[in-house]
């Protein structure tokens, strides 16, 4: 099925679900009309709750849902819209008190009614969830611990909200209305069960084994796994997967890495991994034969998704990984379209995969423009960072017809996007991969 049609279908279904509570609360029988602010605040509470529930479905890595957009975009949207939903829910009791200041006692966590106390606890859970997400890195909170707390607080907030609604009554005094609202949340919790229990069970049937861990330049490793008893997986060059290394498929410890191998090799998957944290710093010591589970493919950063007469790639540091997969795949396919790769690296000695790129340039219409922060003596190439002046010098003449792919540190992506914008490259011609998955 056409990916655009699937994307439009999910978007339409999403809009129906998030507005459904307001429509059903309008259906007879309804409670007696109350002032605008009271009804408005109730509506904010309802749409906020459903929006929080829907988040569990968005992050369930359900491939049919994330495929058209790319899970990186879905996760970014999740972070933003969940914040909006929490603000709407917080506004619900505040507007009630603005309308009738004598209700201020309902905000007291130890006073008010049972309904208000339960509602308050739900709001505290959501605010705590948001605070832990925003300040996790500053608080140096363990990532796995944060993930567990994130799921528990989210589900607790949804459950408490339904309890609050049941106690408060009014619109949900009609059983079918309450059941409809509850059904949305139950489907959402089922999505979480799918992600954490069902999906790992499916992964358990398709294990991989570590077959090579090869050092590259610049503290980078090529981490290769081979399918164990099955035919591997089909992916598009540029996509990524979550890896569970040497642990149960139900472990919550997993790490996202881009494929760096050719998409034509389904049973042998290679990932480019740079030593950046606790797990990646020890990747070189993972024994050959270690069992690995691969949750993927994910992402929409792939030239396979749109035909173009040629490509301009911009890689910064370990952002070269997905481009290695793209270039290797195109070479295996004997693709003759022109490609220009701008590759920013700290120094020549730390430029990962430069030998592979040299070999690939003989199999493809590939021009590699290295941009080094620290150039060695006698360096004839580009130095510094990728900017508008450099692009003016080195971009190919047919550049405006090509698709532009950018992957690297956020500052580098911003700089390249600005430079391309100055070169009047339309937004639709630029694909960026911002790795903000953790």
């Amino acid at each position, binding site marked *: 099925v056409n990916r655009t049609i699937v994307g439009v279908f999910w978007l339409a279904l999403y*809009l129906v679900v*998030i*507005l459904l509570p*307001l*429509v059903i*609360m*309008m*259906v*007879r029988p*309804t*409670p*007696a*009309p*109350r*002032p*605008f*602010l*009271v*009804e*408005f*605040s*109730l*509506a*904010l509470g*309802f*749409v*906020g709750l459903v*929006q929080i529930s829907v988040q569990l479905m968005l992050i369930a890595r359900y491939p049919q849902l994330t495929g058209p957009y*790319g899970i990186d*975009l879905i996760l*970014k*949207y999740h972070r*933003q*819209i969940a914040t*909006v*939903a929490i603000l*709407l829910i917080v506004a619900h009791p505040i507007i009630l008190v603005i309308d*009738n200041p*004598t*209700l201020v*006692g*309902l905000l007291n966590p130890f006073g008010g*009614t*049972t*309904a208000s106390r339960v509602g308050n606890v739900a709001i505290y859970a959501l605010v705590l969830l948001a605070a832990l997400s925003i300040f996790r890195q500053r608080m140096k909170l363990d990532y796995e611990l944060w993930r567990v707390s994130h799921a528990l607080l989210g589900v607790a907030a949804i459950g408490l909200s339904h309890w609050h609604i049941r*106690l*408060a*009554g*009014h619109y949900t*005094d009609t059983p079918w209305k309450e059941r409809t609202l509850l059904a949305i949340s139950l489907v959402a919790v089922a999505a979480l069960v799918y992600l954490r229990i069902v999906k790992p069970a499916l992964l358990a049937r398709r294990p991989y084994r570590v077959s090579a861990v090869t050092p590259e330049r610049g503290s980078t490793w090529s981490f290769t796994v081979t399918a164990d008893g099955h035919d591997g997986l089909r992916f598009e060059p540029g996509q990524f997967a979550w890896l569970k290394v040497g642990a149960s498929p139900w472990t919550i410890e997993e790490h996202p890495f881009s494929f760096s191998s050719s998409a034509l090799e389904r049973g042998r998957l290679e990932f480019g991994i740079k030593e950046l944290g606790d797990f990646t710093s020890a990747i070189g010591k993972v024994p050959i034969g270690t069992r690995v589970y691969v949750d993927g493919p994910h992402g*929409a950063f792939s030239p396979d998704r749109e035909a173009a007469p040629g490509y301009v790639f911009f890689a910064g540091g370990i952002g070269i990984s997905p481009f290695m997969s793209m270039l290797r795949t195109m070479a295996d396919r004997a693709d003759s379209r022109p490609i220009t790769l701008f590759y920013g690296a700290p120094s020549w000695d730390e430029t990962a995969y430069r030998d592979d790129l040299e070999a690939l340039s003989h199999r493809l219409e590939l021009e590699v423009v290295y941009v080094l922060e620290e150039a060695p003596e006698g360096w004839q190439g580009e130095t510094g960072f990728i900017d508008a002046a450099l692009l003016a010098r080195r971009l190919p003449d047919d550049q405006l017809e090509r698709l532009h792919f950018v992957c690297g540190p956020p500052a580098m992506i911003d700089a390249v*996007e600005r430079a391309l914008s100055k070169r009047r490259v339309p*937004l*639709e011609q*630029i*694909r*960026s991969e*911002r790795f903000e998955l953790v």
Partner: protein
Amino acid sequence: MRHLYVNRATLLIGLLLVLAAALFGWLRSQGLVLVLLIDQDRLEALDEVGDDPASAPAPDDAWAWRELGADVFAASCQGCHAELPHLPRFIERGSARDYLVDFMLFGFDGAAVIDGERVAFRHPPFARLGDDELAASLNHSLTAWGNEGALPAGFELYEPETFEERRDLDLTREEVAEERPTE
């Protein structure tokens, strides 16, 4: 650049949610409801029944408060009040009939003598509920838990109109406290 689309989507969906909530607020505050087709069929069937007294809807004077009263009490009162068995005795006090209406509409903040002991307490106002909901829940409280048999002879249950009339008094909680009838 795809990520810019996410920012725009968040902005648009956020605005959509707030605007939809505002539209809901306005429509509901104006008393607008949606009638399902199945409800419409039922209403038309009732119209077709015509003058058959056996199947005609209840007349206006037989106000159907029982189910509504139990629902409103469960939703709005039960969190604090499990039962109210003292109401039949309280209603016998001089001005208790109107006082209970004001108490429910405007709340209470002051002192009262309960079981011979003077205590200070507060009660939230429930003016946000409809007149029919308030009258139904008060009738429920006056008749549930065996209260019905303890009511004074000839006692007339409340009608929504009583709440509608007294709603305009717009009393403070302190004024309601002063109005409380003594034994």
